[in-house]
């Protein structure tokens, strides 16, 4: 890391790539679930949108998009999370925790680890929101 004297030296190449060319950012119109989370530590904010599809009996993440107001780590973890969960069943997606997110970025500076929790929480909240909406529809 000492080789690269720029700020980017703080982050892995993979994290910088996810930050400069984030995938799946933006909004989904009429999403099936939204997870809005804020980081009480630093003030970063992440919104996650889900579109849920069905393969037979299994529900899976057909589409996912995010919007994030935050630092390099917040944006990179948002982007990698969407990559990790897209196409996965809800069950499999929920198994992706912050450690898995950090690992997929090749690591994060210790002070930035809390950003990965933000992304994991956004996913959890979005899935919860989807399930709540579903229950509501059922009871109608």
């Amino acid at each position, binding site marked *: 890391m000492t080789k690269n004297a720029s700020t980017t030296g703080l982050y892995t190449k993979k994290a910088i790539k996810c930050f400069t060319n984030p995938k799946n950012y933006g909004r989904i119109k009429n999403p099936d679930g939204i997870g809005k989370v804020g980081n009480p530590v630093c003030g970063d904010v992440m919104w996650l949108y889900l579109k849920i599809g069905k393969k037979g009996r299994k529900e899976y993440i057909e589409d996912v998009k995010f919007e994030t*107001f935050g630092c390099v780590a917040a944006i990179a973890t948002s982007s990698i999370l969407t990559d990790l969960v897209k196409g996965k069943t809800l069950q499999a997606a929920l198994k992706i925790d912050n450690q898995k997110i950090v690992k997929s970025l090749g690591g994060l500076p210790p002070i930035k680890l809390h950003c990965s929790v933000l992304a994991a929480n956004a996913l959890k909240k979005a899935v919860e929101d989807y399930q709540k909406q579903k229950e509501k529809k059922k009871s109608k």
Partner: protein
Amino acid sequence: MIKRGTKYYFDYAAATPVDPRVIQAVSFHNKNYFGNTMSLHQFGQSAKNILETSRAIVAGLIKANPEEIIFTSSATESNNLALKGVAEANHKKGKHIIISQIEHPCVMESAEWLESQGFEITRLPVDKYGLVSLAALKGAIKSDTVLVSIIHASNEIGTIQPIRAIGKICRAKGVYFHTDAAQSFGKVPINVVKDNIDLLTASAHKMYGPKGAACLYVRKGVKIEPILHGGGQEKGLRSSTVNVPAIAGFAKACEICGREMSHESVRLIKLRNGLIQGVLKRIPNAYLLGHTRKRLPNNINFRFDHVEGESMVVQLDLLGIAASTGSACSSAKLEPSHVLLALGLKHEQAHGSLRISLGRWTKKSEIDYLLKVLPGIINKLREISPYK
């Protein structure tokens, strides 16, 4: 066209490049004046002569007497010495100290430590431009106040305080006035006599000198105790073997600043104002932080709605541009800058700050390059942001 791999340095407020003339002076004195100034032989005494010549040059820049300059290793050390040294020497007179809410962390933390030692600290608020109110200062001074310490020019937002008026108030009330001039020394004229200053902090590496050389001006007659005890160098106020080559470099830097300050500040103000106007014109929901006129010639600090500072700094860095931010994400404590919060900014507003500081080698073409790439960076980050 901008060459690939070119570097653009816009972080002079953090550290300045060392002027080649200073490098030459440091290297020359390292080679020829390595002696210990406390030694009686010619090696020691010739180094001592360089030290005293340097002291006179540094003193000259702020119209002080040479014997009023105490060399230290950093502005942090000078500020610690000023606060703790004055507190210690005058605690029988009183235990009340006044600072502002926008001091450098080394003053904030020194004051907090003194608070834990039984001193009472008043932290004066500032207005939205970062200016301390003279009326509030007057009102805050009590019979047991021993020291007022107000930063001359803010390292973050560049706002310059009315130190002459502040000094006048303190002098009239018989209270010592210390100012941290780390950012302003060598950039704007300072006259310790006319400005009624009792103690002043300056540092070489903010004005094209080497790191590890700084000073505290202590007006003759000011009661102060050392915080470093030992061989009794620097009139007993700062024991440590004196770093003569670095101090000779500091003196060289002062000599150059003294000579070039007036036309350099005109040049920088023109560049600064051009960049401010350019950014405010090109980028919507962008705001200048600090005062429009009462600010350092080389300091610019913007805030952009809905984008975060570290993201901006890294995007700029990837294009070879060095700048800095007061965002919580970039701080070791994960808290937004206390200076930005003191201006009345909300947490999320402080999140989007970007400090751009100019200096001796900043060219118009570099400003133009920054103006060319910054709107795209902000746009991209706003696209990603949930707030539009």
